[in-house]
């Protein structure tokens, strides 16, 4: 005979406001098998859990029903609690009387009736529960980091330093992401390359880090601890084992292509290193612009190379590797503002540029060696207008969210402009100034002292006139329309996720929000995990943020990976499929139905009526089975059943509700 204990939670007023907990507790006393009922304000709290433990001891309970919030919230909490008792953690059923009852009903009468039904069903089910035990599944202690910007690099370094091997995949020819494009970083005005390059070099040289540039993830199977990932190592057409990075090929290449790294300010060659400090410090060939590929001519680089490293025959390579955990750090892009803001010229005015382009202008190793000049005529601008929130905080035409870094880099740019150009003027149009970090507001104040003029209002129109640009805006604090003549206009545009993030999300089962940012498991309490166990997020792939936050999040993701890898093995989920051999007729339909490839048909020797026979029987791989139950419904012979959700258990629930 079962000795079931039923515990009903108030959850403060979350449940108690719409469900009469007293009534539920009273009704539970009459459920078959129930010998003990108790209520609690917060079942999940320390006193709540203690009450359960105490009741088990005092009343000899052998199975528990907890009527509370969703099992997604606290099933694990209560199972953990039961490990301290004589009751097996799987002799537990949760009746969700919150998310599926009190939170979706307004009428207390209806809510209470439903809660009683749900509790009755749970009690009926638990009556048929059997103790279940987990087993161990092996864990591949190798991490995959996708994206090698500062977040990816940081995560890779942390995991590698902890002693675990990491494969760092990057789609561009060099690692470094956006950070290596920047000149100086706020609020310390550290040179970005000076702080980023050492990390890049460390990642490139670390014995535990395998770097794969010009590579993308193509296919993924498996689950936490056991991911099988196919990486496409795209052809570089240069053998890196031979290449010395001398750069002679680049000098001789006749093809000129607009430089993506320099945001269109200069040109590069078809065989190129994106920037001098690239890691790996070796070039790649851009086949879409290389004359050898497009016209079957030239080939000068190959002729000139002293170590015979150029190989035009090279093919893409597909590499299959096993990983235990994945960190997604695919980073951000800037919104296509030209399409949205025709009033700012729609991208047609050469001296109206975005902030990343300004970074290349002001960068000492950039195309102008750090001289701020107008892209149109190369002249030094005397006045600059900077416009914040272009595409951000604009639900009408752009994105509704704030891009978080622009107020600070806007102040940084204003400071740099005024400092580099003697006698210059800088006007910053803003809606608000957001400076939440350490030293941030002080930095902004200093920029005002430098002489930057901040105008609170938006710019309605930018148009060219007599060689400069007229910016017509509003000064909301004085209530006047202002017209500012600018030689250069810098737009602080919205951050958006990299396009590649969509495919990565799809491959790993990580969902994205309405703006395309990858979703964390919980916005407050689980910011680096995703809803796919074993897949973590770092950096701007998860949402707009600045460098300190990206690095912090990267280290957090790494710590999750390290924590995972520190286990000897993983605990398997015991709620998996099992076969009743006697009923199984060996038809094999279940094999095709299983989405995880966990079922095989095995030929086994058995004795029937004292005769040796060979029979085909379904065999479940307990490591691969995820307990989805598809096979149990497909089986004609009812030979397959699901532990924890047996047919009998479910029918008990139906009877409890309907009879």
């Amino acid at each position: 005979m079962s000795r079931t204990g039923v515990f009903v939670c108030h959850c403060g007023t979350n449940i108690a406001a719409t469900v009469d907990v007293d009534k539920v507790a009273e009704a539970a006393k009459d459920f078959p098998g129930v010998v003990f009922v108790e209520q609690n304000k917060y079942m999940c709290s320390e006193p709540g859990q203690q009450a359960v433990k105490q009741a088990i001891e005092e009343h000899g309970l052998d199975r528990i029903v907890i009527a509370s919030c969703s099992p997604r919230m606290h099933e694990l909490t209560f199972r953990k609690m039961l490990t301290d008792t004589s009751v097996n953690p799987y002799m537990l059923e949760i009746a969700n009387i919150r998310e599926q009852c009190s939170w979706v009903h307004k009428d207390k009468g209806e809510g209470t009736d439903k809660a009683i039904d749900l509790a009755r069903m749970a009690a009926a089910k638990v009556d048929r529960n059997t103790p279940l035990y987990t087993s161990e599944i092996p864990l591949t202690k190798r991490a995959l980091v996708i994206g090698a910007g500062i977040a990816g690099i940081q995560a890779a370094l942390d995991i590698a330093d902890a002693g675990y091997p990491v494969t760092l995949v990057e789609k561009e020819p060099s690692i470094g992401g956006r950070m290596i494009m920047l000149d100086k970083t706020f609020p310390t005005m550290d040179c970005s390359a000076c702080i980023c390059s050492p990390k890049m070099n460390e990642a490139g040289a670390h014995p535990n880090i395998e770097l794969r540039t010009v590579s993308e993830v193509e296919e993924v199977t498996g689950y936490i601890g056991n991911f099988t990932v196919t990486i496409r190592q795209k052809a570089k057409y240069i053998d890196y084992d031979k290449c010395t990075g001398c750069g002679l090929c680049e000098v001789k290449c006749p093809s000129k292509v607009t430089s993506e790294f320099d945001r269109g300010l200069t040109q590069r060659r078809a065989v190129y290193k994106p920037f001098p400090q690239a890691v790996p410090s070796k070039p790649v060939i851009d086949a879409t612009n290389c004359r050898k590929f497009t016209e079957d001519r030239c080939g000068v680089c190959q002729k000139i190379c002293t170590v015979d490293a150029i190989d035009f025959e090279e093919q893409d390579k597909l590499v299959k590797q096993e990983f235990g955990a994945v960190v997604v750090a695919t980073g951000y892009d800037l919104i296509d503002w030209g399409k949205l803001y025709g009033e700012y010229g729609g991208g047609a005015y050469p001296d109206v540029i975005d902030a990343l382009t300004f970074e290349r202008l002001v960068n000492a190793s950039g195309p102008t060696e750090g001289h701020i000049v107008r892209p149109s005529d190369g002249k030094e601008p005397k006045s600059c207008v900077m416009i914040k929130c272009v595409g951000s905080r604009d639900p009408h035409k752009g994105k509704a969210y704030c891009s978080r870094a622009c107020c600070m880099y806007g102040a940084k740019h204003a400071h740099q402009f005024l400092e580099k150009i003697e006698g210059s003027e800088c006007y910053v149009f803003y809606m608000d100034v957001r400076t939440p970090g350490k030293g941030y507001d002080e930095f902004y104040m200093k920029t005002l002292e430098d002489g930057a003029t901040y105008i609170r209002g938006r710019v309605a129109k930018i148009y060219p006139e007599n060689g400069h640009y007229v910016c017509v805006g509003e000064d909301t604090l004085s209530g006047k329309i202002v017209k500012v003549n600018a030689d250069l206009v810098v737009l602080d545009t919205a951050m958006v996720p990299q396009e590649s993030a969509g495919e990565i999300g799809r491959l790993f089962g990580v969902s994205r929000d309405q703006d395309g940012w990858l979703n964390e498991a919980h916005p407050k309490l689980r910011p680096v995990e995703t809803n796919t166990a074993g897949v973590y997020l770092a950096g701007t792939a998860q949402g707009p943020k600045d460098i300190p936050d990206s690095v912090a999040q990267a280290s957090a993701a790494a710590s999750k990976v390290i924590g995972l890898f520190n286990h000897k093995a993983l605990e398997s989920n015991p709620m998996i499929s099992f076969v009743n051999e006697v009923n199984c007729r060996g038809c094999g339909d279940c094999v095709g139905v299983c989405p995880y490839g966990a079922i095989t048909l095995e030929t086994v020797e058995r004795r029937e009526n004292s005769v040796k026979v060979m029979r085909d029987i379904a065999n479940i791989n307990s490591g691969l089975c995820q307990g989805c139950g598809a096979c149990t419904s497909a089986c004609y012979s009812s030979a397959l059943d699901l532990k924890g959700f047996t047919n009998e258990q479910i029918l008990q629930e139906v009877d409890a509700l309907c009879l």
Partner: protein
Amino acid sequence: MTKEFAYYPGCASCSTGLAYEMSTRYLVKAIGLKFRRIPDWNCCGASSAHLVNRDLSLALPARSLAISEETFPGLDVVAPCAACFGRLNHAQHYVRKSAENRAHIESLIDREYRADANVLSLLQVIVQNEDIKEALEAKLTKSLHGLKVACYYGCMLIRPVEEVNFDDAENPQSMDEVMRLVGADTVDWAFKTECCGASLQVTEPAAGKTMVEKILHNAYINGAEAIVTACPLCQLNLDMREREVNRLVGTNYDIPVFYFTELVSLCLGAKPTDVGIDKHYVAAVSRSARALEEPAAEPDVAPDDETEKVVTS
């Protein structure tokens, strides 16, 4: 080709916008379109009505549209004046939005109005129908020989974007397309859709003059020899107030302001007096006639030439 349209003339066509009416009539006849004047049409209310009373501003245009629906079932309505087009289009959208709206309007105008027919601007009719564009091209006998024109769209031709859904709101090209068809050289300029001041010229002349001056200035510095419009109030404001602006600000703008239909008609064979160009305030007859002549062999002046351009009559 889609030949027939119901025609809403608008008040200006009988008065200050006479040249627009004359040139539209010439163009329609030359291409072979049929514009059927809506009988007993009334004023659309323009900006005055919607400032005063919402019901009035919807009922006035709805009445004309209802009459058109009854008299010319199945014909789309064309309104050359941009403001009339805007108000008629708005009323039609209002009625299409919900059964309640329709009932409300029908009770005001005491007529049935289903809002089946579309409301189009004259520019839309030409640009959105390939066959009409082809018919126009076929009948062209003259060219403007690279006359530099600044196409001015004003407020009402393209906005509100959700209701009009025609052309780009910041840098429209439809009128430019038509002008290029007849051989003009359209300039890139930044004030295509800045407001001319509309009725402010009468009620707040000081504000109004500034708005006109800004438009004239930007057209001028971008090398325009003429401004082309598609609205009688825009044309009137830019044309009639040009001398006043000169007096007030001390400039000497001398830029003729045409209706696009005038220039197109000239290229279809009209004389300037046939289409009302002699009625302009800023003298335009001889300049428009000269534009139609074959140019003497002369090196082209680059559009971004910095020398001051003073166009003399």
